[in-house]
């Protein structure tokens, strides 16, 4: 994607819409990031963390039983659920940790909704000798008790934010507010791609490892997929998966947002139902009312429950490079169950959105055609939700 650095934008999207207090910390980070991108030793150290600690590369798994069950095209899964901590977010944590060390900061500050990113940040932080402060909304804190125990045992400071909505939005605001007054000793580490510059660039850099790995794996297996499907919350995972494929004409990229409970206006599908606006420091697609007040996203998947997307996706949506769709809570739950029962793979409800779309797509394809689905994380933390939403009648005969 061509991007004019000096303008901090992707096409007309992006930018750095923050309070003056944050401009300079972001500028400092931007400079540090520009430096490390050309720094061989940084790259080496980054790769060594991925290889020796996170478990990269992650496998590309053929879903043969599932493909047989539904008929049509072949499904493959790129398995970020097998990364340390059970999701792709560990990759971001490594980049943040290395940047913090370079900047001489001792603290990582982040927010978490599903718990995945908070745990990843605190874990990598520990391993790098850094301390962590994680902001969590009270609602998420309560629904993700396992992650919260994990954070506690890691010795991270958990800052509870009072809000009655799930999702990163409020925790994110608090974390940024905190950072504005502690920018000299702490590094703010957002998990959201919908953030002020330079975060979209940093996150794209950290996560395009996923797409790059996939490219190599596909080449080795002589597969040219017809579709590449990813779940899109803020779009961090999606940008990492898609970026190396955007120029490839033969592969249609599909980003799947949360269609929510399915009632009017209850969703998190900013690219389908939103319009451009400025929120959380970036100009991008956004759920908002006619007065520019931000809408409340709704989804069973906390990681998708965000009102906006990263600027790259806004640009791709406008250019038509990526096709964005929405899938309902119910479809996602049923896809998670189907994948588990036919492939023994337990994915997060975020990833289940991508699977659900692939399940609709595959039957329309021929047996030589392939759909690669990006699995962003493991569904260990969603087991309770699968159990409690079980459809009437025991599914196992």
């Amino acid at each position: 994607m061509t991007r004019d650095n000096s303008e901090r934008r992707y096409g007309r999207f992006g930018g750095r819409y923050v309070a003056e207090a944050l401009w300079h910390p972001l500028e400092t980070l931007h400079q540090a990031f520009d430096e490390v991108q050309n720094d061989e030793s940084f790259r080496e150290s980054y790769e060594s963390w991925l290889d020796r600690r996170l478990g990269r590369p992650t496998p590309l798994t053929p879903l043969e039983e599932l493909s047989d069950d539904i008929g049509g095209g072949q499904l493959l899964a790129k398995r970020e659920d097998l990364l340390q901590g059970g999701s792709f977010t560990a990759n971001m944590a490594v980049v943040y940790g290395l940047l913090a060390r370079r900047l001489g900061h001792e603290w990582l500050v982040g927010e978490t909704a599903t718990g995945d990113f908070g745990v990843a940040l605190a874990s990598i932080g520990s391993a790098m000798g850094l301390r962590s402060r994680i902001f969590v909304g009270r609602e998420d804190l309560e629904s993700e008790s396992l992650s919260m125990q994990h954070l506690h045992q890691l010795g991270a400071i958990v800052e509870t934010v009072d809000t009655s909505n799930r999702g990163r939005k409020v925790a994110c605001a608090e974390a940024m507010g905190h950072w504005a007054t502690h920018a000299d000793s702490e590094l703010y580490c957002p998990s959201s791609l919908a953030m002020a510059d330079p975060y979209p660039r940093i996150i794209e850099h950290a996560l395009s490892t996923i797409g790059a790995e996939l490219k190599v794996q596909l080449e080795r297996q002589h597969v040219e997929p017809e579709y590449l499907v990813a779940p899109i919350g803020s779009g961090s995972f999606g940008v990492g998966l898609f970026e190396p494929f955007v120029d490839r004409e033969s592969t249609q990229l599909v980003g799947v947002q949360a269609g929510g409970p399915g009632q009017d206006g209850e969703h998190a599908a900013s690219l389908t139902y939103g319009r451009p606006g400025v929120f959380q420091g970036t100009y991008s697609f956004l759920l908002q009312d006619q007065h520019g007040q931000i809408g409340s996203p709704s989804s069973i998947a906390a990681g998708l429950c965000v009102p906006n997307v990263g600027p790259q996706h806004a640009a791709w949506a406008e250019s038509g490079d990526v096709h964005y769709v929405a899938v309902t809570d119910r479809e996602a739950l049923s896809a998670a169950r189907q994948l588990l029962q036919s492939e023994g793979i337990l994915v997060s409800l975020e990833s289940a959105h991508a699977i659900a779309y692939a399940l609709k797509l595959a039957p329309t394809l021929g047996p030589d055609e392939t759909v690669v689905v990006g699995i962003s994380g493991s569904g260990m933390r969603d087991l309770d939700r699968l159990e409690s939403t079980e459809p009437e009648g025991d599914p196992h005969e």
Partner: protein
Amino acid sequence: MSDRLRTLTERRAEGGPSILMCALVAGDPFVEATVEHMQTIADAGADVIELLVPFSEPTYHGPVIRRGFERALQEDVSWQDVRTIAASFRATHDTPLIASSYYNPILALGEDRFVELVADVGFDGVMVADLPWDESGDLRARLDTRGLSMLPMVAPTTPTDRIEMMASESETYVIWTGHSGGELTLSRHDFEASMQTLRQHTDRPVVASMKISTDEEASAVATCCDGILVGSAIVWLIEGRDSDLSSRLARFVGDLRESLPQ
């Protein structure tokens, strides 16, 4: 720059009294009340009023103002209401008026329509919490065509070259934001030092937003700069909804005025 703002800025630059800037939320708790409060505040001695236009995600404001925003949003306060409030106030008062919000409500209205609106009803300047100087070129240019200004905001993290850039690209006084999200970042000592540095890079008057809630604090802050911006303390009084709110507001603003160097 509007004449009203120019007069105020120059008055202080030429050694006049400290600037007292007071903020309140449009439509908190309802539209007519805001007009009354503005009149009270102006009559009690405020030099300039910041009318906060509510946004659903007030990331950079503290809890008191957030609650004010929530109350106003429950009343569905819109730009139309802001127009009404400002117009009513202008009918009786000539106090400089600043429209203050976040960028998205402005974008939703459209920058052009926004500038038209604020200019038409007699605003003098604009503050946008999440629109840094570097991203506001277009909006500043549009405001300029109608003689309005965007007030430059400076924070403890702002390096000197940015201070100079903003000073060189603006004419009004400067807002010093010593807190962010409600938390004070500077000790008294650091504040004095910052003000000294600031003076080395601009001779524009500096109005400090320092979480001031008493006249003692006001006078202490004002000795190091050219004026104070008081927001949360006023919104907090309004939140109390005392039966004698008007007279309490008047007394509070009057006391602040008194405490400032003449």
